[in-house]
């Protein structure tokens, strides 16, 4: 089967293609470029904050940088890198030859490119400076770049919705024979839960952004206070999407590490069904919590307690996942390869983000720490310690499948160590700064916070350096790395039963699935049950 695959030209990655694997790689590489751009912005921000009264950048430039740092990282890095993983993996994991709508799939990717360029180009006309939250009325009066920002996010949301329609259709209709929902790999489960959430929440943000764009472009008065507009309306529309967006950004990462633990512990996933169900539970509950971002705003005070309760309940399915992962590795035969290290790092850092999320849900505590560096620390532990660690784990884990090559394990471990130390060093001091009284989004600060900020900047610089071994490893190993073989990790999910990289149409014959995806230890050691796909030779 492997030998029958015709060589695929690398040139296919540089143009229009409807192959989900090509599109997946296009997403991964493009989003990584934007990650570097967003990281450079963070580098300037952390350099500015080395001293309380630093004048490296002006207040105006600072607001533009922090606004676009957030927007680029969320909309152009984390969301598309996870969409890229989903694109590459879901059809392979479910035994399909491609996504359900290949041309729509290509279109979703090709919307990302102009949208990203539009956001970056906004710096030439005065970039958005009202924060990634774009609170009105501030965002109505900002420079022209604010309009470009809104249009860019509308395009990105549209791309995300198209992708999600595709994932839902693909997972529902294109699973291989015998691949029931209770045999669906957990990464595909997480993409399904995520896609449902995207389809429910994103249209609301898009509508809100359209209102802002119209206020700015054609003089409507949706958010004009003198004309009777309500600033709180935007906050509702914005958070109805943007809180679920956190789950959209973390569920696929959780799915990825749910794949990694059983492989590197040589044990079945503990509580497979509970992990799958908890993804759906997080999706559904995630739609009911948005106003916890508005406890200090003008929302009706009687509504605060219900939102506190729904927010806190999300800790329960999240806890189920964490304990199930721990039980998966308990009693296993653990191998500490790079993907496993990042997956373990995910748990240990996401845990901090999760616990501090409960503090933020508790209204009396939130009224103190809302809009402070405590929130900045919390969200970075969730999105950087969590989502980005998960994305790193996934990149290393599926790298041999995507490229057909092995990466350098030592460089991978160097990257892990620098990333782990850097993340904790950068974000832990921010909790304390916030509790002690430092608001977020400030270009200068009270000198009493100097030491905490210098520690955070040191961590951020270490994170910047930590990307170098990753980049070097990914590029050099693709050219020079040793051949990986079809299944270097000895995993059981379907994507590992085809060649690396997979042939153009994934499966020469439609596979038939006869067992669950994580049945480790069931067959005699070292001899996987022959899968129908492999039996097609």
């Amino acid at each position: 089967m492997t030998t029958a695959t015709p060589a695929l030209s690398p040139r296919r990655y540089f143009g229009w293609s409807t192959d989900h694997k090509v599109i997946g790689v296009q997403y991964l590489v493009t989003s990584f470029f934007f990650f570097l751009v967003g990281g450079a912005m963070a580098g300037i921000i952390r350099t500015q904050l080395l001293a309380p009264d630093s004048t490296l950048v002006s207040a105006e430039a600072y607001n533009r940088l922090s606004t676009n740092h957030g927007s680029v990282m969320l909309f152009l890095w984390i969301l598309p890198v996870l969409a890229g993983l989903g694109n590459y993996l879901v059809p392979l994991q479910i035994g399909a030859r491609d996504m359900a709508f290949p041309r729509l799939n290509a279109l979703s990717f090709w919307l990302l490119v102009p949208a990203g360029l539009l956001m970056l180009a906004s710096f030439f006309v005065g970039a958005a400076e009202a924060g990634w939250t774009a609170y009105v009325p501030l965002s109505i009066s900002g420079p022209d770049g604010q309009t470009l920002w809104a249009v860019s996010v509308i395009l990105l949301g549209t791309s995300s919705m198209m992708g999600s329609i595709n994932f839902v259709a693909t997972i529902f209709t294109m699973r291989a024979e015998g691949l029931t929902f209770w045999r669906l790999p957990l990464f595909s489960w997480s993409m399904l839960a995520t896609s449902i959430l995207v389809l429910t929440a994103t249209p609301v943000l898009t509508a809100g952004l359209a209102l802002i764009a119209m206020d700015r472009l054609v003089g409507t008065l949706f958010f004009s206070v003198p004309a009777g507009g309500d600033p709180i309306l935007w906050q509702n529309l914005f958070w109805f999407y943007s809180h679920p967006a956190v789950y959209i950004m973390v569920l696929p990462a959780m799915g990825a590490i749910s794949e990694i633990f059983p492989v590197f512990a040589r044990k079945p996933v503990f509580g497979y069904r509970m992990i799958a169900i908890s993804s759906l539970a997080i999706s559904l509950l995630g739609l009911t919590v948005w106003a916890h971002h508005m406890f200090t705003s003008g929302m009706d005070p009687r509504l605060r307690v219900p939102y506190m309760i729904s927010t806190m309940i999300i800790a329960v399915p999240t806890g189920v996942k964490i304990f199930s992962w721990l039980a998966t590795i308990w009693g296993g035969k653990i191998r500490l390869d790079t993907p496993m290290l990042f997956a373990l790092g995910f748990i240990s850092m996401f845990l901090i983000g999760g616990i501090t999320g409960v503090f933020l849900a508790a209204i009396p505590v939130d009224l103190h720490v809302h809009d402070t560096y405590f929130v900045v620390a919390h969200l970075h532990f969730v999105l950087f310690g969590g989502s980005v660690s998960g994305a790193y784990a996934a990149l290393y884990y599926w790298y041999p499948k995507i490229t057909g090559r092995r990466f350098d394990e030592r460089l991978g471990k160097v990257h892990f160590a620098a990333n782990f130390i850097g993340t904790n060093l950068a974000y832990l001091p921010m909790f304390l700064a916030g509790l002690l009284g430092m608001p977020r989004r400030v270009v200068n600060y009270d000198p009493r916070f100097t030491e905490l900020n210098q520690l955070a900047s040191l961590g951020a610089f270490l994170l910047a350096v930590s990307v170098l071994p990753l980049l070097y490893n990914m590029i050099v190993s693709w050219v020079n790395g040793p051949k990986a073989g079809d299944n270097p990790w000895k995993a059981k999910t379907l994507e590992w039963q085809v060649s690396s990289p997979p042939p153009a149409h994934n499966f020469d014959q439609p596979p038939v699935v006869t067992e669950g995806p994580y049945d480790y230890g069931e067959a005699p050691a070292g001899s996987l049950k022959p899968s129908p796909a492999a039996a097609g030779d």
Partner: protein
Amino acid sequence: MKERTLLVVVLVTALLVVAGIWVALNVNLMPAEASTRAALVDQLFRAMLGLAAVIFLLVEGLLLYSVFRFRQPRGDDGDAVPVHGNRALEIVWTLIPALIVIVIGFYSFRVLAASEIREEDPLVVNVRSRQFAWTFEYPGTSVISSDLHLPVGRQVRFLITSDDVIHSFWVPEFRVKRDATPGQMAELLVTPTREGTYPVRCAELCGVGHAAMGLSSRVIVESDEAFQSWLTQAAALPADPIEAGRTLFTRYGCQACHALADAGAAGAVGPALDSLADPNGPHAHAHGGMDIRSFVEQSILEPSAAIAPAFADGLMPKDFGTRIPANELAILVDYLVAQK
């Protein structure tokens, strides 16, 4: 064997509980407690911190223990003994976290309700915000101040609003903040309990002067006598015109955006106002033929009429004409023109 497992579980649980209690009692991450609300919030926070410590140590401990204890031996290529799940265990780790969040939720609700109880005869203070300054008005008096003076021990009822974009009124030592939203009047109840001087922060991004706005105002909690005497003194303008001008300069929040050595102001959002009248100074070209008093007055009343180089139009509020009485405007203009 089974008894030994039980013993270990009991022992580890006891250790975790002791660690959690120690953290709750001994770890203080908060600034000074300066209000009744702060004391309540800190109790809740400490309880949550203790619980958080238990969960943190449990999860990280299990993680590290597993990584060291369950490593694949060199040369072993086989799989581990398969375990697919354990119904009882899964129920336990669903129910215990659920129980914990229910307790925290209930406790939070109690603290919230207790911190919003109305007391008799509160002191009302109107908090007005605009880009990029706070002003505090004391209804029933003519006092307008950029620093917030409060008597210790009496409940304050803040009525908070904004003239332009959303700001957020935050005193960390009071442990509470409230957004100032244009077109809305928000209420916030605080009872200060500790004399001292604390910062007033702006917690909602409000534009280029956001950081400066969070560094420009203070709250001074003082004895009732000290507060009353401040109120009397602040209501009257000093007889000396320069001192009166200096008072008005801060009262109307000019110091938040403009630098002026005489008033100790270092704002950088708008142009510096030192040496306005100097014919060779940085402002000389701006007022061209206009006489300097009219130029300064025009710049206060119609900020867009002349924009200093390197500064943007539209940042300075345009409603000073309705907020500053004519006699005070004259004193302020004299004061500014007198700066050398």
